[in-house]
C-alpha cells in the first residue's frame, strides 16, 4: 500500500497528469515495497508535481525557460515602474495633472505587451513608453540634477527591460502554456520599486518585502529557475538606478551610504545569478 502522505503528495501534480499517470506511479511505489514508503519518495513526488505544474517537466528547453525568466523580469520592472508613476501622478497631481498619469498608462500597456511572447513586441512597447517619457521629461521644465536624474532613472528602468526582452527573443520563444503563478510577485515588486524610487531603499518595510522574495526565488530555483532569472533582471535595474542616484548626489546620501547600498545588493545578486545558472543547468539534464 502506498501511504496517505504519498497520495497527498501526488496531488501536487496537475489533475490531467494524475489521471494519466497517477495509478501507474502508485503501482511503482507499491512494487518498491518498504523503500517505496519513505519520506524520500514523498518529497520526490512533491518536487516532481511542482515542476510539472510550473510547466517545467518534460519538453522544456533551458533556453525557453531562461527566455521566460527574462520576460518576467522585464514585466516586473515595467509593471512596478507603472505603479510608481501612478503614485507620483497622485502625489504631484497639482503640478502635473495628466502627464504622469498618461506615462503610467503607457508603462502599464508596455507591461501587458511584455507578457506576450510575440517576437519583439514587448521591446517595442517598452521603447515606445520610454520615448513618451523622454518627450515628457524634455517638456516638463526640469533642469539641473533633477533633469539628469529623470534621464538616469529612465535609462536604469528601460535599459535592463530592453536588454532582457531582446535577449529573450534571441533565445527563442517558449511554446508551452505556463501557469502564471509568479504574477503574485507583482505587488511586492511594486512596493520594492516604489520604496527604491522614494529613497527609502533600506527601510524595514522594503526589506520585509524584498528579502522573502529573494529567498523564495532562491528556494524554488532548483525546481523553477524563472523567478531567479527575473530577480537578476530586476536587481540590475535597481543597481543601475542606485548608481545614478549616487553619482548625482540625489537624496543627499554620503558616499559610504551609497557604497553600502550597492554592496548590500551584491550578495543577493551573486546568489540569484548562481541559483539561476544552477537551475537552468539542472533543467538541461535534471537527473
Amino acid at each position, binding site marked *: 500500500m502506498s501511504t496517505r502522505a504519498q497520495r497527498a503528495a501526488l496531488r501536487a501534480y496537475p489533475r490531467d497528469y494524475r489521471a494519466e499517470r497517477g495509478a*501507474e506511479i502508485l*503501482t511503482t511505489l507499491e*512494487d*518498491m515495497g518498504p523503500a517505496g514508503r519513505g519520506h524520500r519518495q514523498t*518529497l*520526490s513526488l512533491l518536487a516532481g*508535481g511542482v515542476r*510539472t505544474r510550473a510547466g517545467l*517537466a518534460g519538453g522544456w528547453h533551458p533556453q525557453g525557460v531562461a527566455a521566460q525568466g527574462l520576460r518576467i523580469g522585464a514585466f516586473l520592472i515595467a509593471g512596478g515602474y507603472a505603479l510608481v508613476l501612478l503614485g507620483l501622478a497622485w502625489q504631484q497631481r497639482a503640478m502635473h495633472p495628466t502627464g504622469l498619469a498618461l506615462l503610467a498608462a503607457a508603462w502599464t500597456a508596455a507591461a501587458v505587451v511584455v507578457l506576450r511572447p510575440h517576437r519583439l513586441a514587448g521591446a517595442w512597447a517598452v521603447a515606445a513608453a520610454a520615448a513618451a517619457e523622454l518627450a515628457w521629461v524634455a517638456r516638463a521644465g526640469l533642469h539641473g540634477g533633477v533633469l539628469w536624474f529623470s534621464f538616469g532613472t529612465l535609462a536604469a528602468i528601460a535599459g535592463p527591460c530592453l536588454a532582457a526582452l531582446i535577449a529573450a527573443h534571441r533565445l527563442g520563444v517558449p511554446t508551452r502554456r505556463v501557469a502564471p503563478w509568479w504574477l503574485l510577485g507583482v505587488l511586492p515588486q511594486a512596493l520594492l520599486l516604489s520604496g527604491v524610487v522614494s529613497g527609502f531603499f533600506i527601510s524595514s518595510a522594503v526589506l520585509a518585502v524584498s528579502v522573502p522574495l529573494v529567498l523564495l526565488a532562491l528556494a524554488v530555483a532548483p525546481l523553477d529557475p524563472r523567478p531567479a532569472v527575473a530577480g537578476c533582471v530586476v536587481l540590475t535595474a535597481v543597481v543601475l538606478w542606485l548608481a545614478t542616484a549616487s553619482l548625482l548626489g540625489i537624496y543627499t546620501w554620503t558616499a559610504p551610504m551609497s557604497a553600502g547600498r550597492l554592496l548590500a545588493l551584491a550578495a543577493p545578486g551573486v546568489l540569484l545569478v548562481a541559483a539561476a545558472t544552477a537551475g537552468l543547468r539542472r533543467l*538541461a539534464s535534471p537527473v
Partner: protein
Amino acid sequence: MALREPTYFILASLIDQPLHGYGIIKRAEELSDGRVRLSAGTLYGALDRLASQGLVEIDGEERVSGRERRYYRLTAAGLQALGEESDRLARAARVVRSRLRAGVQPA
C-alpha cells in the same frame, strides 16, 4: 551533451527488454552497482523528458490485480544516444588507463 548518470542508467536498463517503472528502478540500480537509486518522482520526471526527446516510448500497458503498469522501451534515437555516450565514456576511460599503465608517477 553528456548524459547524467541516472539518465544514462535509465536508458541502459531498457537495452535488453521493455520494462515498467519498478523494473527500471531495479535494473538501473543493478547496472550501476547500487549507485543509482531512483525515486518515483525522479523516474517519472526523467521518463517524461526522455519521451518528449524521443529517446524512449511506451511499449504497452497491463493491469494485474488492480495494479496498472506501463512498459517503456528504447527508441532508435535512444539507442543511438546511449551508444554515443558509452563511446564517449570509453574514450575518456581509455585515455586515463593508457597513461596509468605507462606508469606516469604523480608529481
